[in-house]
């Protein structure tokens, strides 16, 4: 190719990139940059134009806040347990509806329903179903004789984290199923047939063929879900507002920023959230070697 053609190709490439770069600047780089900037100021939300630079004082304040570490612990507990359950359930359901069972099409469509309902709606539905006096769950358990009086699922400090995890599992397992099912369907059926003819028992077919070949799909699903879970806000907030038992890092940052009007400290908290999510993402991508798995 002549130098002129190369130049023209480069120009075309840049032209195609301009819309993406422009929108990224507006919706990602600018807000993120503003947040980072305010993290180093003592600004308040009522008038962000009045501020002075305070260095890393805000970051240190958040770091030394007991509530922040409570929120970190809640977030990590929620993330690890919910993603683990969702992955296991998602894999099991995906394997099941990948089989040629009757009503498979209907099952595949029906499984998406919880995923399609807005989080706020799902949470409110479950909150009512779990209500200690009027909830259908308590009625059912009472009728079956498991309990003699209604359990305060969402009021009891020891139960509420379990409830949050349960609702999240109910809502987002379909997402896991869908991603893992897509991965399953990428595997050639003949590979399983080959293993079958070779006399490989079912458990070994699953362990040595299905699971390793699903690794990229499961990895991507776990990554997506983990990043989602780490910045979870709506579910906990709708169910328990700022209850410290289920306060996530996002709720903490929101409280500092909006409730307490501390733009500087709130931005610092947001920066910590960003760093936390980035760190976990890097660890997962490294551990699952997703970058390499994707390239095969």
């Amino acid at each position, binding site marked *: 190719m002549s130098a002129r053609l190369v130049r023209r190709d480069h120009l075309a490439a840049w032209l195609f990139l301009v819309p993406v770069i422009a929108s990224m600047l507006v919706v990602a780089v600018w807000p993120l940059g503003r947040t980072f900037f305010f993290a180093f100021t003592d600004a308040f939300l009522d008038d962000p134009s009045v501020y002075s630079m305070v260095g890393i004082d805000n970051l240190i304040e958040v770091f030394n806040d007991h509530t922040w570490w409570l929120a970190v612990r809640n977030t990590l507990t929620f993330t690890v347990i919910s993603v683990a359950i969702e992955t296991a359930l998602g894999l099991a359901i995906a394997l099941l509806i990948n089989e040629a069972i009757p009503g498979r099409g209907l099952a595949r469509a029906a499984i998406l329903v919880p995923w399609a309902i807005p989080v706020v709606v799902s949470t409110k539905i479950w909150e009512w179903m779990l209500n200690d006096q009027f909830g259908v769950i308590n009625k059912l358990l009472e009728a079956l004789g498991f309990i003699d009086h209604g359990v305060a699922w969402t009021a009891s400090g020891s139960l509420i984290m379990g409830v949050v995890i349960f609702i999240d599992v109910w809502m987002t397992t379909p997402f896991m199923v869908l991603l893992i099912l897509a991965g399953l369907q990428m595997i*050639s059926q*003949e*590979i399983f*047939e*080959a*293993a*079958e*003819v*070779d*006399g*490989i*028992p079912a458990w*070994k077919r699953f362990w*040595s*063929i299905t699971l*390793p*070949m699903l690794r990229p799909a499961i990895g991507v699903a776990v990554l997506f879900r983990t990043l989602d879970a780490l910045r979870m806000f709506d579910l906990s907030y709708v169910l328990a507002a700022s209850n410290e038992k289920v306060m996530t890092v996002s709720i903490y940052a929101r409280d500092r920023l909006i409730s307490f009007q501390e733009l500087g400290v709130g931005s610092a908290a947001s920066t910590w959230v960003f760093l936390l999510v980035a760190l976990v993402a890097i660890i997962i991508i490294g551990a699952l070697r997703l970058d390499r798995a994707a390239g*095969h």
Partner: protein
Amino acid sequence: MASVSMESVSKSFGTHSVIHDVDLKIDDGEFVVFVGPSGCGKSTLLRIVAGLISASSGTVKIGGDDVTDVPASKRGVAFVFQSYALYPHMTVARNIGFALETMGIRRDAIAQKVQQVARMLKVDHLLNRRPRELSGGQRQRVAIGRALVRQPEIFLFDEPLSNLDADLRMEMRMEIAKLHDDLKTTMIYVTHDQSEAMTLADRIVVLNHGRIEQIGTPSELYRQPGNRFVAGFIGSPRMNFLAVETPAAHDDEHIVGPGGLAIGRSPSDSIPVAEIGIRPEALRLVPTGTGRLDCMLERVEDLGHEHFAYCRVGSGTLWVVRLPAAPNTDTIGKPAALTFDDHSLFFFAADGRRLLPSAEPLGVRSALS
């Protein structure tokens, strides 16, 4: 090693019937090729033998034992797929040895067997590679190695060479033939390529629309096809056909056709001949007026060692004639004539049955439905 037999095996998927009442006996150590056009049910039949598909009705026996309800994993057969179906995340060595891992064989014994098989198939230098790092031919060798290492009773091949280029296909064909000579294991091989069937098979099973059209050795099928389908399927280039008429017998000329064709005898008095067939190598191209059939020489293909003339017979039919030498280029596009010996003609009834000059039609396709 084992024999295979199928007794009135049928298979349908829902209301769609793909195999109709197949009876077949394959002897121990035999190399049998299922051949037929795509969609004829040959792969389905092979999968029924493997146990990957269950028969809707009928009995499958391997080594005399009824295996109709035995799962694929317990049938002691090995299957080589067209797509090779190698495990992409395993090395070549593990691909070959994987089946042995669950058989309670010690690690070093597995490694030794894998090494031995790999050496035999000339892939021993690739043992640490992954399938994606291999060429098509190498993948096929690994797939065969994976079958070989288990020392199966029966080898099943499902179009194993279709994804290879022509040179490699020829080479692998030789190797599979040699493998059968060495192992003397029963092999069933599916292909749509009649030349693969002709070169490999002890016996060929020709399938069409889920039915067996004819079973026989390659030379039997070539010389004595039982019906028009087999006559047209076996042989390359394919047999030439021509629709003819059998007028009421009032003189010596019993069969007449386009281009002045007149054949002085009919194989059967009761069943009229609807079509004649003749192979390209049985025809000779001669100047107009000296042959038995007038035609138009439209085109000549020069393959170096042989030449094919394409002759328009009558209004629509194009015949292929094999020529020993290139004809004079002046003759192309001009009328010519063809001649042949009566004994190289094949006669077919309107339903496709072959009519034998002796009188009785061949009984292969007795019940046409």
